[in-house]
């Protein structure tokens, strides 16, 4: 199974559009894809793929209820099918209170546990939910999209996926965000006793100035794979947000005239998706499921 978290310390670098378009590219290649949207912001992936209608419904079952051990129904009922067959667990406003609710649960679990030294594994709850829902046997690819802040959302996402895909802008700020992320991840690995890999760094919105060329070189020096550099596609991305769809669907349905450079961007998402799949040695979807090397 291919599992990854898309994360960047800087906001506004296209984290959500890259998650959504990679997910669609995986699905178009024939893989069964689940995306877990943990971003409580209104403009999150569930909005982009048009499944955020219940985000403010207080009584609605949602991921947080499952994470704190108080689900109102089966996990499968949270899942919504979106375009190209990509399954999404939508965001919900309760995610804003995830930290507080996990801490309350920790207090309760620890106070009532027979072992006085018991520590509630606060950052392992998403993995627990995913395991219990049998996600690994139902899906080939799991993408988690957390908010762009360090905290339990990100820690749970990384504990469940162990892989990062880092979108970034090629600038001093982007480089700093990679360095900051490195510190954060090193700390997490020690804290949680896990190894986290970086499957790819994705420069996004690149306009091709000479400064950016040198940042790109520095990025590659850090040793991270940079399978594609996504050029500035403001009009395409704005169109996607307006129409609430992936770039694939936008170009297919909403562009009367196909533009070569936009088709190139689509094929880059496909290249990126293939690169991610290859990194974990996931077999092609035609293979019998039993032979899929998870």
């Amino acid at each position: 199974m291919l599992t990854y978290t898309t994360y960047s310390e800087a906001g506004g670098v296209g984290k959500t559009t890259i998650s959504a378009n990679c997910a669609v590219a995986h699905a178009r290649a024939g893989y069964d894809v689940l995306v877990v949207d943990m971003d409580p912001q209104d403009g999150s992936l569930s909005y982009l793929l048009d499944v955020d209608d219940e985000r403010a419904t207080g009584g609605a079952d949602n991921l947080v209820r499952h994470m704190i051990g108080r689900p109102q129904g089966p996990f499968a009922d949270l899942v919504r099918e979106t375009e190209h067959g990509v399954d999404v667990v939508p965001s919900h406003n309760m995610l804003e209170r995830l930290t507080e609710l996990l801490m309350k649960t920790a207090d309760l679990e620890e106070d009532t546990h027979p072992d006085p030294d018991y520590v509630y594994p606060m950052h392992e709850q998403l993995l627990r939910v995913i395991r219990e829902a049998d996600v690994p046997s139902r899906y080939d690819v799991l993408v988690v999209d957390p908010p762009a802040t360090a905290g339990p959302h990100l820690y749970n996402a990384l504990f469940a996926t162990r892989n990062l895909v880092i979108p970034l802008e090629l600038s001093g700020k982007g480089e700093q965000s990679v360095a900051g992320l490195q510190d954060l991840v090193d700390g997490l690995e020690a804290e949680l006793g896990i190894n986290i890999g970086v499957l790819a760094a994705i420069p996004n919105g690149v306009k091709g100035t000479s400064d950016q060329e040198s940042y790109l070189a520095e990025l590659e020096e850090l040793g991270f794979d940079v399978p594609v550099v996504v050029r500035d596609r403001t009009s395409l991305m704005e169109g996607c947000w307006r129409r609430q769809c992936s770039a694939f669907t936008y170009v297919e349905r909403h562009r009367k005239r196909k533009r070569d450079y936009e088709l190139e961007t689509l094929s880059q998402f496909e290249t990126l998706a293939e690169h991610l799949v290859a990194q974990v040695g996931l077999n092609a979807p035609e293979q019998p499921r039993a032979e899929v090397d998870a």
Partner: protein
Amino acid sequence: MKPGAGDDPFADDADAERPNAEGADGREGAEPDESSEPSTASPVDKPSTTIPSSDDRPESETAPAASPGTDGSPTVAELDIPWVLRRSSVKSDRDNVHQFFLRDDTARGERELRSEVERLLGKEVSKLDLREAAYLVAMDHPEEVAATLRSWGYDYLE
């Protein structure tokens, strides 16, 4: 964090019913008790530079930079009304989430501190407010913070 793939989070699922098989490096973190061990030296605990130092934080918490008026500066109303009255929820302006990993004794201490502070104020205090206030007070007392770290044996670290 390294280039390439990390652990397989579901490595245990294929060959074991109980999630206790170890990964290739012997530290696969599926066992909750072990992997959530509190660590006093975790970089995750370190205060980041985004926390205001005692020099630049607002004196009376009346005008945090995160709530600008339409022209980017705090409005008159924001300057006059204390933060806890002005905010819509306890999380207002608290965009920086810093996870605390506490040892049991510290967590107990926090409960005691909270009741004591609540007694002094004569009203309930939210945990987030208590923690941030305590952290700000600590920032004015770096020597005492250092003394506590010494008592944990910091002097003996390389």
